[in-house]
Each structure stands twice: as C-alpha cells, then as structure tokens.
C-alpha cells in the first residue's frame, strides 16, 4: 500500500510527557490531598479518631451510597442521571421485607432485593432509552413512583423479623475490623474501575458522554449502552438496599430518604463531569472517603448533621471551582 503524501514519514509519539506528570496534574491527586488534609485535621481534632474500630464504624457512613455512586458515575459520564436511586432502595427493601414475612430465606431475600433494583432499573431504562425521555425529569417522576409504591404497600407499618443470618450483609465482618460492606465496597470499586477503564463497554460510555452523535455515527449502540447503565444503577441500588436493610434490620417506606442528592454529590465531588464524558472511579472512591471522613470527623466533634452538610456543600463548590480558577489564572498570566 502506498501513502498519498510525498512528505517523509514522521513519527508521532503515543503519549506526551512522563506518566508521573500526567498523574500529578489530575483531579484525583487534588482530591487525595484534600482527603489527607481532612484525615490529619481529624486526628488532631479528636483523640478518638485514630482507632481501628471507630474508623471501621465510620465506613458505614458511605459504603452503601458509594456502591450506588459507582454505577451512577458511569451513568453521569454517559450524560444521563438517575435521581430515583434512593426510591429504588425503598422499594427493594419493601419487597425484601414482604418476602421475609412470608418466611423466605436469606438467599431468596437477596435475590428479591437485587431483582427489584433490576426491575426498577429496567423501567427507568425503558423510559430513557426506548421512549427517549430526558432522564433528569423522568427519574424525578420514578422517584415518587417507586417510593410511592412502598408507601402503598407499607403505609404506616414497618417490616422487621428478617432471618438472623440476613444481618450479615450490613453487620457482619469479614476479617478483623473489615466489615462485609467495606469489603464489598472495595471489590465493587475494583470491578467498576475495570469495567469503566479497561473494557470496550467503558470506552463506549466515555464516547457517548463526550459526543453521543459521534458515538452513534461510529456504530455504538447508544441506546443499548444507556439502557444497560440504568439497569446497572438499579442493580447497585438493589445491592445497597440489601446492605442497608440488613444493617437496619427493618424497613420503612422512608428508608434512605434524600440519598439521591448525596450520591450525586459524591459522584460530582469525585471529579465526574456532570456534563458527561470525563471522570474516573478512583475519583469517586476518594470522594466517598472524603465525605465519610468529613461526616465522621465532624460527628466526633458533635457537629449537627445539617452543619456538616454545609461543609459538604462548600467542599463540592470549592473543589469544583479551584481547577477552574487555576485555569483562569494560567490563561491570564499567559496572555
């Protein structure tokens, strides 16, 4: 095969700069630095902070939300969002509760919880990728619908009486201070990181988020990928529902109220662009730790939750703003 040009062949390098410089300039490093700072601050501020069991207890603050955040991260990268995740937890938990009353055993309950999440995910997926409705408003709708069904089923009642071994998912420990939830969180983090960063599917997610026209024009089944992402988010909400229900040992329709915004906050803080197309799972993992550390650290100082949320809100805005301001300053000084 001949080349068109008469120019001599030039070699284009694969990458620019050293790996170290590429990593040093990333969002994840900034966030990691924040996490370290908070860690140091916490250890200085409270004598109870540096204790293996206390830290282990603190992980429960974020593990369940983070599991959803992993799937949500993929969804947000693809340019969509799912605000119904907390409602899916409520519905899945209600389904498990109802099943438990019928005497269904632990494996069955887990299957029902995850299955309900899957069903909800499929429902969202159909609305968004088959009917092509905007996900932000559709999931505001399904958020009321799913939780509403829970309310219809449970009303003012609660489900308790879960089988004894069901408690393992939310209260059990794998080794030493490492709870089942924490281990699951780590395993899922790795799985999602591989899925997003090392598979064709992950590449397609990025392509869709960067330009879903171009993705479609490149033969990527855009609707199918989005459908799978909603389904995945539903499943992860189901998994989180299993853990949370097991941890609480009871189900009420108001369970996990308001979690959707916390999950989205975690995703955004993790450096996932809300406009789609960029971000990493590592970022979300660090963001989960940051949020967990802030909550736990301030909790040790007995700061009320709502004041903590001021810190989280500020953290969100400031960490998003810093790189933007830095870029501005760079552009200005280069002019």
């Amino acid at each position, binding site marked *: 095969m001949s080349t068109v040009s008469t120019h001599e062949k030039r070699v284009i390098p694969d990458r620019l700069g050293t790996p170290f410089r590429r990593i040093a300039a990333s969002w994840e490093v900034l966030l990691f630095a924040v996490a370290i700072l908070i860690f140091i601050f916490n250890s200085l501020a409270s004598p*109870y902070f540096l204790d293996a069991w*206390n830290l282990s207890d603190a992980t429960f603050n974020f593990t369940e939300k983070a599991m959803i955040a992993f799937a949500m991260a993929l969804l947000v990268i693809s340019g969509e969002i799912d605000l119904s995740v907390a409602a899916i937890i409520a519905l899945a938990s209600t389904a498990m509760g109802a099943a438990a009353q019928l005497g269904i055993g632990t494996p069955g309950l887990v299957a029902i919880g995850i299955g309900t999440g899957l069903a909800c995910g499929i429902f969202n997926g159909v609305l968004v990728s088959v009917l092509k409705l905007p996900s932000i408003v559709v999931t505001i709708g399904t958020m009321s619908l799913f939780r509403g069904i829970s309310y219809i089923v449970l009303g003012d009642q609660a489900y308790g009486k879960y089988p004894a071994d069901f*408690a393992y998912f939310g*209260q059990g420990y794998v080794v030493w201070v490492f709870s089942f939830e924490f281990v699951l969180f780590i395993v899922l983090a790795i799985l999602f990181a591989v899925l997003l960063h090392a598979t064709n599917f992950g590449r397609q997610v990025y392509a869709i988020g960067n330009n879903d026209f171009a993705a479609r024009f490149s033969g990527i089944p855009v609707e199918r990928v989005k459908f799978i992402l909603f389904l995945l988010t539903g499943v992860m909400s189901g998994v989180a529902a299993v853990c949370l229900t097991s941890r609480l040992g009871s189900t009420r329709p*108001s369970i996990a109220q308001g979690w959707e915004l916390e999950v989205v906050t975690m995703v955004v803080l993790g450096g996932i662009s809300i406009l789609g197309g960029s971000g990493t799972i590592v970022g979300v993992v660090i963001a989960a730790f940051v949020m967990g550390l802030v909550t736990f650290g301030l*909790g*040790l100082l007995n700061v009320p*939750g709502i004041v903590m949320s001021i810190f989280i809100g500020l953290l969100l805005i400031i960490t998003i703003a810093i790189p933007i301001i830095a870029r501005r300053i760079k552009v200005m000084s280069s002019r």
Partner: protein
Amino acid sequence: ADIKIGLVVKSLGNGFFDAANKGAQEAAKELGGVEVIYTGPTTTTAEGQIEVINSLIAQGVSAIAVSANDPDALVPALKKAAQRGIKVISWDSGVAPEGRILQLNPSSNELIGKMCLTLVKDHLDGGKGDFAILSATTTSTNQNIWIDQMKKQLKDFPGLNLVTTVYGDDLSDKSYREAEGLLKANPNIKVIVAPTTVGVLAASKVVEDKGLVGKVYVTGLGLPSEMAGAIKSGATKEFAIWNPIDLGYSATQIAYRLVKGETDGKPGSEIEVGRMGKIKVGDNGEAAMADPFVYNASNIDQFSKVF
C-alpha cells in the same frame, strides 16, 4: 467530666427536645462530673440517628439515652454500643427491648391515649360527635402507639366517632392541606386531634383561615411555646403535654445510675431519680414518668415562656 452521657433525640431544632436537654443539663449539674452530649440528626431518620450513635460510641461515652425514630432500625447500632460497655436506655419514643436496658415513657401510653380522647370529649357539645386524627409521619413510633391506644379506648367514650386518620408528615404545608381536605370531605367533623405540634398548629391555622373558630376545635399534644398562638385565636381551647424538662432530667438521672451500677434497670427495680422521686420499671422493661398536664388560656402565658 468522667461520665459522658449521649442524649440522642429524634431531630435537632425541635422545641420539645431542646426543653428535654434543659432538664438533662440540670440533672448533670446536680449530679456533678457528668457531661451531657445533646445530639441527633437534623431530619427524623433512623439512618441519621445511627450515624450519631456511631460517633458517640467512637467517643467512648458511658451511656446513651435515645428517643428513637424507628424502634427496630436502631437496635443493631445500640447492641454494638452495649457490647462496648455502654449503658443504653430509650426515652420518649422507644426502642425494641433487645436494643436497650429500659424505656422511659413520658407517661403511660394508655394515659396519653385516654388524655387525647378526653380532650376531644371536652371540646364536643355534650361529649358527642365526629372527630378525626391528624398525625405526623406514618412511621413515627409513639404517635402510632397513641393512635392505637385511642382506638382501643374509644369504647369507653360512647358518642365519640373517629372518622379517619390522616398524616401530615410533620410538614406544615402537608398538614395544612390534609386538615383542609379533612374538613372538606367530612363537614361533620367537630374536633381534630393531633398528637404532634406541627399538626395542631396547621389544623388550627385551617380552622382560623376558614372562619371555623368556635365551630371546629383542634386539640392534641403540643408545646406551650408553640401552641400559644392557637390558644389565643380560639381554635384550640386546651391541649396537653407532659413536661419535657422532667423527661430529660429523668432520663439523665437513670442513665447515671446505670453507669454507676446503682441499679441494673431490670423489670421490677426501682430507680432513684433526684427531684422526681422514684420510678419503677414495669414488667415489660418500661417505666412511666407522670401524667400529661393540660394547658389552656389560663396558664398558657406562664408556661409558654418555659418550654
């Protein structure tokens, strides 16, 4: 202080619990060497309370006294506390027996249910007529118990007819709409009883706005400081509440005695509670403090300054 007691409430920023905290601080001062950590989530969720309880466990408190948002969901967290040697009691809104040593009821639930029905009866001409309940969220433990009690004791109040129960979720706007809908759908209702302050307030606003003062009455359980307006407008003639200061005081006292090992809190034991005298733990592991107290135009000004 060598003894730290965590006073966990359903949500911060609630006048009732702020008053309870006053009592708890009073007990702490009286006992000496006691620090009360007043804490709780900002919205009434079990998840929020679990986080708060975890951070109290981490701080190594000696005792936790909790008013629960969910009787079952807190149990695992409280069991963990017990395993780390923390004495756990519940007060006001109870926790399932596995999760605590004892439960301190503000009053006996029977009494509260009876009190609510009595209030309704007193507002009705000749003690006969329709009434409805406007509750908080569908999941609030103690409201549900009291509503149950009211239903059970209804047979002792011939002439009273409970039309329906609605839920305002402790949100002013929702409670307002529910109360409005209630009156529209059931024009015969003469009294709305709400075992929660937000409910009484919203319902009396509706009565006031619809010009029904004197025709429909609102009553229930609420704090004097919050209810003063409703009494003034005439939408409410009287309402009841127990003394939250005493409740917080007693809970702190009991927690202290448990930590000191002065009592084991088992059913049947009697516990010294300072100025409140002795409280006896019943067979079900529950103890009751005192009868609710009725407030009306004659004493509202005096008490609305206190709590």
